[in-house]
């Protein structure tokens, strides 16, 4: 006769399947009352690295524990952090350094195992008391994904379910290059036709000669799509992508974005793209400008590169700045005050001044987040203070310091995403007479 065993505690994550920007509750029941327990998340990334987060909790008199309501007394996060199990994730001890967690295949969910262990000591050798699996999706059901085949434009188009027509968004990432689909997939899940654009391959920034017209063509791919409202296309750019975004919004005679969102870099450097006319220009122009020998790259105590300081002086050089005064549409700027890669706040201050001088400051909405770093991503994704980066000009692998402290950075991600969605909703879905500064 097998020994009588008591049943496992009941662990419940709701919802068990959700979009990556949705919150969940984690509830454990049937525990011994008033006992120490650790709730832990574990994820195996597409690169085969393990990521984890955990919090130390105490069960109540009914033997229950709620991550939504209760305080964590230690672990990768403390205090009341409903989403701490995702936003404080980091590679498990012994992992390769400088990792970053980014979903490549957006057609499958991110699988996270949530488990509860006894005690507050090292749980890694224990079998958990209970364990469940939760799915985090970038694509809502019915969203369609179309890699662009025939066009000269490289990227992936995401289309929401339904007949449309929908507003559209051109989505651009930064200096790391490559094709990143996850934010575009998420935006499509919120009702926008969205093009994730690749404008150079990772490490190929110097050789990729992207004309300004490449971006205009990309914008038109969206605008001319039968399911898109032609006068309701916006642009969202992060880092180098926001420099491109600002150029398109100020200099292009071909495209007219209805609104733009710039995360982390604006106004300055490189010189306006149109200055080069129609001759092909490589993105190396950015680096020629930036890697000015007068302002060498700095390093911190861990040998991470800090670019912030070398860019700051260039803000004063108007020949190196996009002519923001030519801005024709509402703009939302998201900045982290602890951005070590780009002097984001100083840049927005500069943009604000320029717009004010021409009476256009009503077009600008800014959100500055204290102690947040450069990589402000969709919410509930881990914070990366420093990660590996291939420096385009030299093809060197360096460790880039992005900045930010985990808790304020996570809060910035959550808040800024809400603001971005609200700004897009207002400008791209709203009525004409309602369009104004948020």
């Amino acid at each position: 006769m097998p020994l009588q065993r008591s049943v496992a505690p009941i662990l419940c994550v709701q919802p068990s399947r959700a979009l990556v920007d949705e919150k969940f509750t984690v509830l454990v029941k049937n525990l011994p009352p008033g006992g120490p327990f650790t709730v832990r998340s574990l994820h195996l990334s597409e690169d085969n690295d393990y990521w984890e987060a955990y919090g130390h909790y105490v069960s109540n008199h009914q033997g229950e524990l709620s991550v939504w309501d209760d305080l964590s007394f230690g672990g990768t996060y403390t205090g009341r952090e409903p989403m701490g199990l995702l936003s404080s994730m980091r590679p498990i001890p012994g992992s390769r350094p400088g990792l970053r967690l980014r979903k490549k295949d957006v057609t499958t969910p991110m699988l996270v195992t949530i488990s509860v262990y006894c005690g507050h000591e090292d749980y890694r050798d224990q079998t958990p008391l209970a364990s469940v699996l939760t799915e985090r999706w970038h694509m809502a059901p019915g969203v369609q994904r179309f890699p662009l085949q025939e066009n000269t434009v490289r990227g992936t188009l995401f289309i929401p379910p339904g007949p449309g027509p929908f507003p559209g968004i051109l989505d651009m990432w930064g200096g790391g290059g490559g094709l990143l689909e996850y934010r575009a997939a998420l935006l499509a899940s919120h009702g926008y036709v969205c093009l994730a654009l690749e404008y150079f391959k990772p490490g190929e920034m110097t050789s990729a000669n992207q004309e300004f017209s490449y971006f205009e063509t990309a914008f038109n791919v969206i605008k001319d799509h039968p399911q898109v409202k032609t006068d309701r296309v916006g642009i969202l750019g992060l880092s180098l992508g926001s420099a491109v975004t600002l150029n398109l919004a100020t200099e292009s005679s071909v495209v007219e974005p209805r609104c733009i969102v710039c995360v982390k870099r604006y106004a300055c450097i490189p010189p306006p793209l149109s200055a080069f006319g129609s001759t092909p220009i490589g993105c190396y122009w950015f680096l020629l400008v930036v890697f000015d020998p007068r302002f060498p790259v700095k390093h911190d105590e861990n040998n991470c590169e800090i670019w912030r300081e070398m860019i700051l002086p260039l803000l004063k050089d108007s020949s190196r700045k996009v002519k923001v005064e030519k801005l024709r549409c509402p703009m939302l700027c998201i900045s982290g005050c602890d951005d070590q890669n780009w002097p984001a706040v100083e840049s927005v201050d500069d943009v604000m001044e320029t717009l004010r001088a021409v009476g256009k400051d009503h077009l600008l909405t800014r959100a500055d987040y204290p102690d947040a770093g450069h990589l402000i991503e969709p919410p509930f994704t881990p914070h990366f203070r420093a990660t590996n980066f291939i420096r385009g000009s030299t093809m060197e692998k360096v460790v880039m310091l992005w900045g930010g402290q985990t808790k304020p950075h996570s809060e910035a991600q959550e808040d800024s995403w809400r603001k971005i969605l609200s700004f897009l909703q207002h400008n791209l879905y709203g009525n004409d007479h309602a369009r104004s500064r948020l």
Partner: protein
Amino acid sequence: MDRTQCCVQLSVQPSRALVDERFVILVEKAPPGFQLSVRALHQCEDGHSWEAFGHYISDATGTVNVSQDLSLGGTYSGVEAMGLLCSLRPVPGSKPGLRMRKKDVQAPMMVTISVYQGHQVEGFVDQVPLASVVVERWYVAPGVRRIPITDHGLTGTLFLPPGPGPFPAVLDLWGGGGQLVEYRAALLASHGFAALALDYLTAKVIRETGKMVEDQYFETAYKELQKHPQIVSSRIAMIGLSFGTTMTLKMAIYSKVVKLRCAVCISGSHVQPIEKSVEEILSSFNDRADKTRINEENQVIWRDLLLPIPTDPSLKADVGSLQCPLLLVVGEDDQNWPTKESAEDIQEMMERAGNSHLLTVLSYPDTGHLIEPPYSSHTRTSNFKPVGTNQKVTVLWGGQMAAHARAQEDAWKKMLAFLRENLYGGRKASAATQSNL
């Protein structure tokens, strides 16, 4: 209304959920006071299309909230958050007598929810909706494992919740149509119970030997659960619907091997010749086939076969000797089995025997025989071929859609609570807190 101007937005939250979870459907940015139809469309695994729709009027802000607003007509009316699923029926022109049952439980049920201009009753397929979204309805939570069970002559499927366990377990039996029906067991595993869906009428061993199973078949299934390393051997329950109830009571009361922690009997009866084999019990029912009634619509009513409830104790399971809590789920409009009359007799027998503190009866007015997990469409009649016959008939199961839908939702909630209390709770707690709901 100019389509290019229209910015109607439709959202269904959550877009991915278990089949027993509610959703909220929100239509926004319609013109105020605007007539709208919200429609659900589902293509089931055998290719048939099912639809449901409700008629709404947007409020002053141009919003319709299906959970809060009145449907003024359609396949359902009133405030019905889940009406678009509960009232799903085959699209006009479909074959008659269809029933929707998920076979592949590892893939979700996909439902397209759309909003149309005006109060439409037909022709949706020819129109372009104002907006449309897709929702996934799942029978399995992430991480639930599906394990076919074929050892020892069994035909079944075991569903295990994610995690190390150990878990309590449920042996899950359906009724006289036979087949291996997995969806309720899959759902139970998604709620933390190891669940074994067992085919006991059309199992491989029956097809091969031409003989019905004996008690030993169920006892073998029980022992398989007991010896599983992730199952707590002392915490096993049985759940049976229709003829599955007959088997559940047989095991719970008479088996020397099966020791249930609790039992759930849905739409069934205790009327059965005792100490007889499965085959003999089935024959005894068939012997009374002359009591079959056919109504004006040519639908078969079988509830009289077991009536009147016998007084002879050898003709009904001795519920007075039950030693575990029993939950009975009764549809008062059950046209297939005399569930209500049986429940009354069971109550009486247990009161006389002094063990009625173990009994809970959930009795629902205007509710039919097929009491399924919530938010599945109500089947009032359908084509049916009972095991061992070659006749396909149209059976009247009974129930009125709205009342039946509410009964499914309420019964499921209470069934899960009953199972949790008895299978996850302490033994003392379960006996002491049993009461008649």
